[in-house]
């Protein structure tokens, strides 16, 4: 690669772009510890009281539990579906494969409001009460494509002859799956669980339409944004969520890399988006 002797403009641009990307994420913790109810500069000093406030809010704790419930259910179901789809897509040729896979991945590009509205109409028509479960139904739909993307790279990285070798050495198909396939894609499965959990935890639009009386965390945050006095606590909550998410993502990335470690250069979950 040719390198200019002067300023590397592309690198300068890259740094500026990263500042743009991180601007909101950096402000979040700053206002979470700023001793003022107004979210604006200049800063007023350090305080931990917004975090303390979180402890005393029952509505918040309830919504956190609701979100946990939804996210855990979502990540398990969508990863199970993702395992089936990724395995089928990477291992077997079957009629109509392209169309079927395209259809399953469709929620990736559908506006979420369409998914939410469509599910809402059906649920109302069926006379089902909106609840956390209806949120799970919607979340599984949008999370499964992400799970497939993560798991496809895990399944694809696996040399097919490893399974054949196991059969060749006398193992049954079931035991081959248990002794060879599963251990090899396990990092991918864990990574998929973490990523779908994270997406579900943060998803707002579908939850907003499909939840009943039980609010999830983003729905709770949305309701709080209207009350300026509550904003600093919301910032504190957002900070905690961001930290939790980063930890989960680092774990997910670590597991995913273990599953693809011997395949040279690899790229993140977006592998399935392109």
């Amino acid at each position, binding site marked *: 690669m040719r390198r200019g002797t002067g300023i*590397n403009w*592309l*690198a300068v*641009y*890259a740094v500026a*772009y*990263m500042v743009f*990307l991180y*601007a*909101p*994420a950096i*402000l*979040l913790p700053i206002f979470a510890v700023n001793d003022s109810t107004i979210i604006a500069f200049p800063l007023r000093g350090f305080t931990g009281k917004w975090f303390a406030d979180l402890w005393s809010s029952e509505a918040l704790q309830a919504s956190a539990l609701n979100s946990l419930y939804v996210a855990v259910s979502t990540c398990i179901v969508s990863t199970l579906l*993702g395992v*089936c789809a990724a395995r*089928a897509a990477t*291992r*077997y*040729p*079957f*009629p109509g*494969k392209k169309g*079927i896979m395209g*259809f*399953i991945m469709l*929620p*990736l*590009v559908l*506006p*979420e*409001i*369409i*998914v939410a509205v*469509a*599910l*809402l*109409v*059906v649920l*109302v*028509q069926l006379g089902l009460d909106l609840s956390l479960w209806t949120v799970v139904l*919607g979340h*599984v*739909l949008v999370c*499964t494509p992400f799970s497939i993307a993560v798991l496809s790279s895990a399944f694809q990285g696996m040399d097919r002859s490893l399974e054949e070798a196991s059969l060749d050495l006398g193992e049954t198909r079931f035991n081959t799956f248990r002794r060879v396939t599963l251990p090899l894609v396990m990092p991918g499965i864990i990574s998929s669980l973490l990523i779908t959990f994270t997406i579900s935890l943060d998803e*707002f*639009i579908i939850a907003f339409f499909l939840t009943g009386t039980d609010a999830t965390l*983003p729905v709770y*945050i949305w309701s709080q*944004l209207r009350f300026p006095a509550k904003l600093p606590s*919301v910032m504190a909550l*957002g900070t905690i969520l*961001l930290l939790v998410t*980063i930890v989960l*993502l680092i774990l997910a*990335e670590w597991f995913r*890399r273990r599953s693809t470690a011997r395949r040279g250069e690899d790229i*993140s979950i*977006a592998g399935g*988006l*392109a």
Partner: protein
Amino acid sequence: MTMVASSTSVASTAKPQKPRLNKDGASGLTLISPPLLYALLMLAAPLLMVITFSFWTQNYLDIDRTLTLKNYAEAWTDPLYRLLMLRSLAISGVVTVVTVLLAFPIAYYLSFRVTKHKALWIFLITIPFWTSYLLRVFLWKVILGYNGVFNSGLKMLGLITEPLTFILYNANAVVIALAHAWAPFAILPIFISLEKIDRSLLEAAEDLGDGPVRRFFRVTLPLAMPGVIAATLIVFIPTVGDFVTPKLVGGNDGLMIANMIQVQFGKANNAPLGAALAISAMLIVALISFVFIWLNRRFTTGDGK
């Protein structure tokens, strides 16, 4: 014992096996059926339902199931809806162009200039994307506001004396917030297609006399087009349907069609009209996407996959 090997072409007497569908195909279909079934039940059926719904009418809580085009007539003729629809498309279009243009140099930088820790860079780019979406958009309000980070920063530098007002509660703010929100979705596909370019092709172009600029436009960019197209669609389609960003930072001039859909399903209690608006928006977006893909196929030679 005699050992004979021959390449005989004598017609085989063994019974012919059944043609496809073979074992692999059957296993594949069995495996794919749970996720497929789920998508059919939770996506295809609801979408069909919404389409049906859009031909019904609603009076407060009673639904009239006679089929009518009334909702569509209203959706397509009412000046307000038309304005919102056109504005949504315009904003999404601008967001897409801005996002992809801003993303390309980053993807290029990562692919061609960064030699160490590429995966770490990619990871760093995706991190802000995982901040709570609501809070991220809200924080743009803080940044762009009258006394926001941006204005106070410019004031401190002495570049302005009065805060700029054209950056919040209008379409500009929506564009900035969305360009931020969708950045990783634009960077990653472009990055992937740049990574796939065989580096010796670039050396070949140089060897054959192209300078860096010509080489970029004659080799790099055409080969990166699949990624650019993917990025364009991935950003354009969902942004048309966003209602959080316009609501939080768009003011009255920044409201989009999705806000109206939400209102129809909520306060206005006219779900069939909301459904008709949603279907109309989806059709228009799909149409634009297909035209875009078709144009690209037309004007790029080679396999425009």
